[in-house]
């Protein structure tokens, strides 16, 4: 018998929820999810081949620039985008802000991103995502963060990277840390896996599942700093199953062309010739930020651990 996405028993999960929530995320694989701030951008994204859009009032690069508290978007803005496109529409809530999540669920947003890009509402608890019908995606920097989010009910994990920088270095760091964490469990005897579960603060069954299958029990996507087709292909070769692109498209010189190029690069991530073709003449990429020039408090990835 094949067990295709047999998430270990987690209290609160039903088999049907797993089929429906993880099943939804499976459909996005090999695709690009693009940040959009209005119906026009949403249509451009859909037309370029995005497999979903993330509706938000300001892309991360602008959230950085404006400062202040970043919150969930105006429902009007999200509804406008839902009406504009036929592909799935996601939206972000603040970490721990379960009321913002309840509101997005009642608007039938297809997937909720409990995101470190917005200002956290709760510095101790993340949302108990098991009580929702809507699938959640959450960011991680390593295996421990990924498994804690899955235990809380996340149906999809993405690297945090460092959103709004146009710099892929943190996404690479987080994907490598996650993959190394997964590999380090291989072949460990039960007592060591039990110790690992205590260390990572998750149930033993979750750790044992990952040790055996050598992957996460939910789709594993990448986000946070992807700005070029090559960046997208890099994340795919490192093990990502799909790519979120935030500021990288609509903060570039030619968003239409760049969006199409990143979609193609994500499909043909293993074909350097195709990557060369799609990368020709894309115009100005977004201006990036050197991570080492950033003050620690400017980093978003430390939110939600």
């Amino acid at each position: 018998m094949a067990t295709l996405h047999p998430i270990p028993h987690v209290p609160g999960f039903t088999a049907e929820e797993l089929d429906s929530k993880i099943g939804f995320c499976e459909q996005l694989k090999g695709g690009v999810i693009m940040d959009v701030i209005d119906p026009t951008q949403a249509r451009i994204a859909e037309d370029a081949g995005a497999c979903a859009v993330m509706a938000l009032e300001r892309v991360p690069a602008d959230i950085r620039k404006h400062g202040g508290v970043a919150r969930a978007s105006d429902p009007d803005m999200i509804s406008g985008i839902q009406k504009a496109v036929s592909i799935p529409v996601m939206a972000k809530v603040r970490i721990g802000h379960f009321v913002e999540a309840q509101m997005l669920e009642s608007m039938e947003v297809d997937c909720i991103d409990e995101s470190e890009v917005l200002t956290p509402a709760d510095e101790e608890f993340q949302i108990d995502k098991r009580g929702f019908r809507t699938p959640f995606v959450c960011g991680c920097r390593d295996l421990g963060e990924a498994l804690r989010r899955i235990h809380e009910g996340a149906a999809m994990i993405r690297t945090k990277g460092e959103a709004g920088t146009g710099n892929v270095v943190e996404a690479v760091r987080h994907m490598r840390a996650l993959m190394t964490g997964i590999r380090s469990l291989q072949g460990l005897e039960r007592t060591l896996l039990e110790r690992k579960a205590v260390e990572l603060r998750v149930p033993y069954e979750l750790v044992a599942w990952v040790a055996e299958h050598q992957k996460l029990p939910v789709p594993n996507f990448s986000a946070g700093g992807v700005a070029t087709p090559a960046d997208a292909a890099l994340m795919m070769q490192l093990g990502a199953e799909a790519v979120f692109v935030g500021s990288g498209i609509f903060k570039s010189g030619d968003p239409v062309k760049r969006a199409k190029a990143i979609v193609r690069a994500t499909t043909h991530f293993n074909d350097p010739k195709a990557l060369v073709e799609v990368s020709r003449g894309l115009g100005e990429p977004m201006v990036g930020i050197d991570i080492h020039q950033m003050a620690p408090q400017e980093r978003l990835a430390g939110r939600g651990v």
Partner: protein
Amino acid sequence: MVSEPSAPLVGVLALQGDFADHEAALQAAGLRTRQVRTAADLRGLHGLVLPGGESTTMLKLLDVDGLWGPLGYALRSGVPVFATCAGMILLAETVENPSQRSYGLLPITVVRNGYGRQYHSGTFPLRSDVLPAGTTGTFIRAPRVAAVGEGCEVLAWRDGDPALVQKGVILAAGFHPELQHGVHPVVARFAGMVRERAGVVVG
């Protein structure tokens, strides 16, 4: 799960979507699989799968990669074809909500996201004379089959709507048997079709 080296080879369109789940399901049914991203990948296949995913994304990628024509040729070559969700949309004669281009190989009308957004996704009972009693289907933002034309057989229903249809060697489901545990009876049916016609290959 290792399939026999002599097992029939099924190509799974791998531009975007849940192609890896289809591969796992086909391998569990004893078939070999190959991911199809270019025209060259189509040669020598004994069957073809159009997976779930976003049909608009697949259409764009079929166009820019010059795969629309070669894939159409392969789909008409007589090898068994299995399509789920977005794949069913690509094969339908008429697509609504909104209307979009398709291969038109199945005389059906499909309404994209015909059951609503993800909130309304879930696993539902199927009514069928050919599938075992109790068989269910996982519908994810699924297309709803609004009309079925001549020569197309309805093999399973979700309430009043056709959910699994077949015309000749083309089998299409609005749901996702590849997502469910074990070898789903619909995957087993397709595997049987491929084995029966293993002499037919895409040239």
